[in-house]
């Protein structure tokens, strides 16, 4: 197993990711969950850097941590009474869900391992990515990926308009 070459940073980040992710899904206080999510997203950004995706890491921090997580905190504050958090935050599916997820992980693990041995280990080039990958990405966005770029902006527009429509309080 090609674990050795990932280094200690990976392990630290992994542990951070998994622990914080577990907190996200299990903590009782939803506000704490949001904080754990932020931690998790930061750690994922670290993984991105490890994988040579600096721009992505930046975007992750900017968009996720800066926007999405904050949005969620706002939403939490808008919707829930922070004092009332006595009840369990998981529903009746908890045990079953846990089992299913563990099972999913196990099956996935076996498959990943077999696929790695069968295919990826033969393809694993690990060539360094273009060093100027931020520049490259930028160029991509303006060339090949100009269309998705535009479409995604339409998407954002639609989501925005929709969110406004829905969230707006009607003056009856």
């Amino acid at each position: 197993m090609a674990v050795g070459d990932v280094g200690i940073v990976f392990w630290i980040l992994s542990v951070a990711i998994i622990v914080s992710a577990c907190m996200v899904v299990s903590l009782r206080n939803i506000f704490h969950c949001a904080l754990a999510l932020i931690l998790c997203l930061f750690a994922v950004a670290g993984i991105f850097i490890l994988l040579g995706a600096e721009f992505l890491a930046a975007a992750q921090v900017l968009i996720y941590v800066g926007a999405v997580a904050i949005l969620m905190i706002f939403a939490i504050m808008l919707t829930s009474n922070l004092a009332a958090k006595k009840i369990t935050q998981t529903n009746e599916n908890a045990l079953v869900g846990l089992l299913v997820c563990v099972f999913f992980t196990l099956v996935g693990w076996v498959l990943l391992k077999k696929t790695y041995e069968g295919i990826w280990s033969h393809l694993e080039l690990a060539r360094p990515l273009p060093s100027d990958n931020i520049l490259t990405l930028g160029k991509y966005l303006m060339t090949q990926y100009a269309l998705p770029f535009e479409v995604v902006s339409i998407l954002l527009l639609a989501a925005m308009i929709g969110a406004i429509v829905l969230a707006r309080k009607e003056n009856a």
Partner: protein
Amino acid sequence: MEFKLPENDLTLMLPEIFLFIWALWVFTFDLLTRRKKESAVGYMAMAGLLITGGILAVTGGGCGFGTMFFNDATAIFFKMIFLGAAFMAIGSSFGITKQKIVNHRGEFFGLMLLSTVGMMFLSSSNELLSLYIGLELTTIPLFILAAFFKDDKLSVEAGIKYFVIGAFSSALLLYGLSFLYGLSGSTELVQLKINMAVINLHLEQIGLILVLAIVLVVAGIGFKLALPPFHQWAPDVYEGSPTPVAAFLSVGSKAAGLVAFAKIFVNGLFVFYGPEAAPADWGKLVGFVAVLAMVIGNVVAIRQSNIKRMLAYSSIAQAGYIMIGMVSMNEHGMASVAYYIFAYMFANMGAFAAVAIFEDKTGSCQIESYRGLSRTSPLLAISLALFLLSLAGIPPLAGFLAKYKVFAAAIAMATQNPSYNWLYWLVGVGLLTAVFSLFYYANVIKQMFFWSEDSPYRIRFSPPALAVILIGVVGILLFGIVPEPILKFAAEVYASFGIVPF
């Protein structure tokens, strides 16, 4: 590495661009008129769709933006369906915009148009990323639209359900797509197909994770198609959301899912279709899903008392029939899928339109309240009966020819190659459940026609509603009796899967 803008013949994209701009115009128009114009916004939206259709007819096919945008026969055909579905959905929503959605008509119609734009992009794409984004552009406005009755608990519940399940399934889909990318190193479908074939040939094995990827992608798109076992959201959401939105979901969103499915599986994973690709062969898996869809959809629909839920289950079943065509990988297969969805559009949109019109008047979706309707509103009753009969597959309505084509495709496949004998079972289940399906369709017809007492309701049509109903009726009759042009087009759809651009 070279960067250049792919050949971008933007004129090919004109319909989408126009429709997007028109959507913005619809938003603006509503604001400009201070949300006072009751139906003008709706007419505006319908006009926009018509113009888009016109432009679409003029622009013709060709390569627009590399594999990101490619206007082949498939794209054009499905764009027609999206535009038609949107047109009919908007046409049937004048009632609710008059009564319920007073403040946000522009947004309602605009979002529908934007969703249509997403579908159109989706159908033109031959690359996973743009496919995904098209899919999301299709879905996100629909989340909003499903919850559009903001103070109606059912509607909001429908919205949140659709959203959560939708996002969940899109996560599954993405996870699956990431493995496809990981196994091929490409997101362009044709390249993906080639790379995978080469790697498989080279390493003499398939990556086993492909199985998980296939299953995940089936789940992700199965959600859009409301295919069992990923269907359970559909009845709840259809019931809760505004009826025209449910209609649009059942046709537009389904057609979009179909395109995505066809592009990924029929095109991208073509080589993994047959039994020799086991365990990654997706044919039998999808066949099994189709069986589930037909059985569950048709059986559970029988006891529904709410007509929208009934139609939801019916549309689940219809998806099952479509999947029969999908897994028949011959010249009839994709063509039959295309024709099926075309016929289905008229019938299902028509049926939902009729339901919407009835609901506007009576506020009820219970099947019992249709009792005696043929006495007071014969046009509505007759057309609804025709739509339902078309869905049930009674000749000479288009729905029959659609089923005929689908089954023909499967039987052609089965007779040509003995290793596809299992398609006979699909056909068998399909036909049997088609008989069952008649039971619940006929139940509605029975309510409308068999009682001699008059219904307390007398339905008046608004002009757009009338237009929608007539389009539906004319569609199922005309394309049932003179289907040749559409069939030719459908054949081209098949052909377009063979000549994918690089």
